[in-house]
């Protein structure tokens, strides 16, 4: 009860705004002011949801099956490459212009190439998601590692830390505030990519659902997929923020 009060005190405005948005939507659709093609009535959306409840969960699972490996791969690449470049100045100098050039390529343009070169669809999808999201984390990692306080490295040297141990115990933790800040941004990008790569090799997926029904012009379904996706993404992001807070609890 007390917790609820605290919650309400903090979030009453949030709740009000959401309610206001919903009411505005209802008013706009009922009064006929909104374009009925793009903005179907709430009842239609609800009906579409009822008909697709099961599919929604399938979509979520399917999307996660793509997202999780993609995120892990892009994280691994960003960390490994980022660490190497962050620590090795000459290599950084040499590769920066190349990484830079690749980083500005909009990954969605690469889809036919990815399909052509990847052994299967899942790999192609994962490649595209990773490609679209790796850069922010990569650059954040490089910066984070470049700007590690040299005194930590001194301390590590006096403890004779090296190799993997140096990486996991000193370098990555020291750079983690920067890395995680970049990663949040990457994560937001992942969702965007999802909508574009879920077109092949799959019959399910949150992005696929939204995209398919928007192409069909069935906007009641699109809205369902849309709202569902946003809710899931907010939850994922929130979980991630909690994780980030936990990992960075040592910072001030």
């Amino acid at each position, binding site marked *: 009860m007390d917790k609820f009060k605290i919650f309400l005190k903090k979030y009453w405005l949030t709740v009000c705004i959401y309610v206001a948005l919903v009411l505005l939507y209802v008013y706009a659709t009922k009064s006929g002011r909104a374009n009925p093609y793009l903005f179907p009535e709430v009842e239609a959306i609800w009906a579409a949801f009822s008909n697709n409840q099961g599919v929604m969960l399938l979509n979520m699972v399917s999307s996660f099956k793509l997202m999780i490996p993609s995120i892990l791969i892009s994280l691994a690449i960003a960390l490994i490459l980022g660490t190497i470049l962050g620590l090795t100045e000459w290599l950084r100098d040499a590769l920066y212009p190349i990484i830079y050039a690749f980083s500005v390529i909009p990954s969605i343009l690469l889809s036919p190439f990815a399909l052509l070169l990847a052994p299967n669809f899942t790999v192609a999808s994962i490649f595209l998601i990773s490609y679209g999201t790796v850069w922010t984390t990569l650059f954040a990692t490089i910066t984070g590692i470049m700007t590690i*306080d040299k*005194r*930590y490295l*001194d*301390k590590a*040297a*006096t*403890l*004779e*830390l090296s190799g993997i141990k140096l990486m996991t*115990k*000193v370098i990555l*933790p*020291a750079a*983690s505030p920067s890395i995680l800040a970049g990663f949040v941004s990457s994560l937001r990008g992942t969702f965007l990519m999802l909508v574009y790569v879920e077109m092949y090799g799959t019959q399910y997926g949150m992005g696929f659902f939204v995209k398919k029904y928007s192409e069909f012009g069935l906007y009641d379904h699109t809205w369902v997929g849309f709202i569902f996706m946003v809710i899931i993404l907010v939850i994922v992001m929130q979980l991630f923020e909690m994780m980030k807070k936990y990992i960075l*609890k*040592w*910072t*001030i």
Partner: protein
Amino acid sequence: MDGKNFCRVEWSVNFEYTYIREVSAIHDVKIEGLSFAYKNDNRLILKDISIDVQAGTFVALLGQSGCGKSTFLRLLAGLETATAGTIFLDDRPVSRASLDKGMVFQDYGLFPWMTAGENIMLALKQRFPQQDRKKLKQLALDTLNAVGLDESVYRKLPKELSGGMKQRCAIAQAFGIDPPILLMDEPFGALDAVTRARLQDLVLKLWSQENPKKTVFFVTHDVDEALLLANRIIVFGQSPSNIIYECSIPADQRPTRENQFDNPELLELRNTLIFQINKDVVSRIS
């Protein structure tokens, strides 16, 4: 400082812990014609320093801010490479940082992303890779105990500890890995007077009870601290630095905190040291 909830722990010290001593030899330190300039800066910081320090000596390094005391310590630690001259431990030249040259920094004694316990364990595991975890954990707890911290501190992050507690953990770590040479760079510079006095006593006690004793290099601004702790005092001059004064304090002359200001010989020495450190101040302001 803003509203952190420091955990306050009773200061009850149990000095007796059974440490693991794997390196029995404590080394003589011999420095020959040491000069140093930072690479990005041609200015010579240290110029042609030569000293011999016998194993088991507690050396205090005094000198004005910026004269190069920290730089000198970094050279001893193997964190910088001499521009000219060599540092020998017994007869081996120092080439790189290693576990047998323990370092206690002014801050940065602990990695902030690990708990105090993890910090100490990391060092102990590096030092004693053969020992089993349990024994090391016991050692870690014992050393924490020896510096007056209890088990609850073991699980605390550095940011949850006060400055004094952090420094005590760093000291616990340093004594736990038991390096034959211990380098301390103004370890108590940021602490208040009471904490500082207690830590001085602590270090002195820990150092004294060992046998053979470690060789300690202790950088400080504070002449009284030097007099209380060291049996050899070295004063650095400035730009470029060299040893401008040095003296030894025989074992029978060592002061205690209580009688520090009673011995006229020591008071004399104290004034000499203050004069030596500051002698160029009045001449240089005009």
